[in-house]
């Protein structure tokens, strides 16, 4: 795989208020009935949107957004990668929030889409910024670990390993895992249940 470094994401915001937004809401299960990820973006938050006509994902003002702004425990529940896939295919290149479920976070890393966290106050400030100025630029800078909006800079947090993976372009792990494969065989052979040494 070609190395693709993810250092800075620059673009307008897509604000989404609410804690504990689960992946069933992000992409309802009926849209998982397919053998590709194609077209998932059309169904992003489909049921929430139908029940809330003013939903930001339906709002054309946010059509070109690149940075999604969320609150706490975003992406909890089902492990479906379809959720970050749908978000990514909608044009979003980074999701900034107070906290993420671990599986959603890991799935997003595998897509090269960072999910750095910020304080509760910062999510509020960023969401308010995007609501008041939908075309206002937000800059997510993984080198400086800052997010900038409307001339204000806020601290970002990202686990060191994930940050390195984005900056080095090693977020697609497959190649790394196949390096020096004899080491894998050696560890496996030492496990009694693999060696069936019992």
């Amino acid at each position, binding site marked *: *795989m070609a190395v693709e470094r993810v250092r800075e994401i620059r673009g307008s915001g897509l604000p989404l208020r*609410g804690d*504990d937004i*689960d992946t*069933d*809401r992000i992409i*309802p*299960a*009926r849209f*998982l*009935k*397919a*053998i*590709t*990820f194609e077209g998932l973006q059309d169904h992003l938050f489909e*049921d*929430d949107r139908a*029940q809330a006509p003013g939903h930001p994902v339906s709002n054309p003002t946010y059509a070109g957004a690149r940075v999604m702004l969320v609150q*706490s*425990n975003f992406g*909890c*529940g*089902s*492990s*479906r*990668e*379809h959720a*970050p896939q749908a978000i990514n295919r909608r044009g979003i290149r980074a999701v900034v929030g107070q*906290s993420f*479920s*671990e*599986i959603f976070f*890991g*799935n997003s890393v*595998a*897509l090269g889409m960072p999910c750095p966290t910020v304080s509760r106050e910062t999510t509020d400030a960023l969401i308010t910024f995007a609501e008041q100025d939908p075309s206002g630029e937000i800059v997510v800078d993984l080198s400086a670990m800052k997010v900038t909006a409307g001339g204000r800079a806020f601290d970002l947090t990202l*686990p*060191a*390993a994930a940050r*390195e993976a984005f900056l*080095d372009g*090693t977020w*697609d*792990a*497959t190649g*790394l*895992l*196949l390096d*020096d*494969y004899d*080491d*894998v065989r050696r*560890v*496996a052979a030492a*496990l*009694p*249940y*693999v060696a*069936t040494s*019992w």
Partner: protein
Amino acid sequence: MPATLFEKIWKAHSIRRLPNGQEQLFIGLHLIHEVTTPQAFDMLHARGLGVAMPERTIATVDHIVPTLDQRRPFLDVMAEDMLSALERNCRAHGIRLLNIDSGQQGIVHVIGPELGLTQPGMTIACGDSHTSTHGAFGAVAFGIGTSQVRDVLASQCLAMEPLKVRRISVQGRLGRGIYAKDVILEIIRRLGVKGGAGYAYEYAGDAVARMSMDERMTICNMSIEGGARVGYVNPDETTFAYLRGRPFAPQGDAFERATAWWASMASDAGASYDDEVVLKAGEIRPTVTWGINPGQSVAVDEALPANADPEALTFMGFRAGQRVQGTKIDVAFVGSCTNARLSDLREAARVIRGQHVARHVKALVVPGSQAVRAAAEREGLDRVFLDAGFEWRSAGCSMCLAMNPDRLDGREICASSSNRNFKGRQGSPTGRTLLMSPAMVAAAAVAGEVVDVREFAPAEVTVGR
């Protein structure tokens, strides 16, 4: 130095530290199913890669299978496409597929244990968040996304970061009519839906030690609902007795030797934990969710909190201060990887034997696997349910997530033994889910409304253990 089971398994499976600081972890068992794999195989093919260890990979079909008419091709063209893709991929890579006609098909988290594939000391991954279920055997088991499924197919490894360990001790005796489901709902309510982020949950204490494997699986299954990707119980005699004689478990003398290794992987007495929580079993009551996440629950006879989340109240049609008891239901669902094992069906059947489902309720029982269904039929449980007016279905995920014909309609309310009460989870965007134990679901089906199973069938509920 004394260590936890998590630390021991991690160490035994760690290959190396990757350049980015993550660790490369060997995966002992990779379980796959039709929903989260077709894209993974496509990515593999696009890169010209094969499956590293097909013999450590097992497939089944569960999410999309119809539970009424399973003749091929399925009536749902997309469901048929998904199973066909799985069949094609398994054939191409030499992966064993436990298909509809195998007699061994079922929900992936039900068949792994019942076939003896799931064993203590293993690392287990599957593209499904309820993979934590397998932790009941003293394995480190977790859900992954499709790109990670690709990685495991390609390398039998994952890039991971280690977790902290929180020991949750449930101490003392559970009251009469209190089930494992009530215990895990109480744990999630207490610690919150994101309380487990960054942790593996080790369930301990004498109440857990007395639990059957089925009960331990119910608890570990819903770890993810508390934000913990991994949940486990240390392996003990109950674990070993369950595994003895299972088709994929070691046989004969090998079983005895395996037992010694399995026992050695349990947490040491002096192991240190990143956090410890103690729950008194005697305080746990029959628990029911009222909201739109599994942490929003109350005891069946308890009032909804005054500060209940307004969004959840509005969606569910409840008011703060009201009780869930007495809520009229439309549908009753006994099924899912949480509660569709033989003991779950037995407990549900016991409380409704000789009675009939309320006229306005649609009630269905969906066994977790073909083996569970067959075992239940040998005991006559199918007759108990059918005579009571329940539908008796074939194995699958069914109405837990409605990727198949089983789903709610409109704003229907479902008493459900499944694991998630998220908005739209059961297939209708406005459908409502009340999570509870299978015995509580069965009682609600007959009463037509949410009841306290201890009052509904005082002689038939479990005796406090």
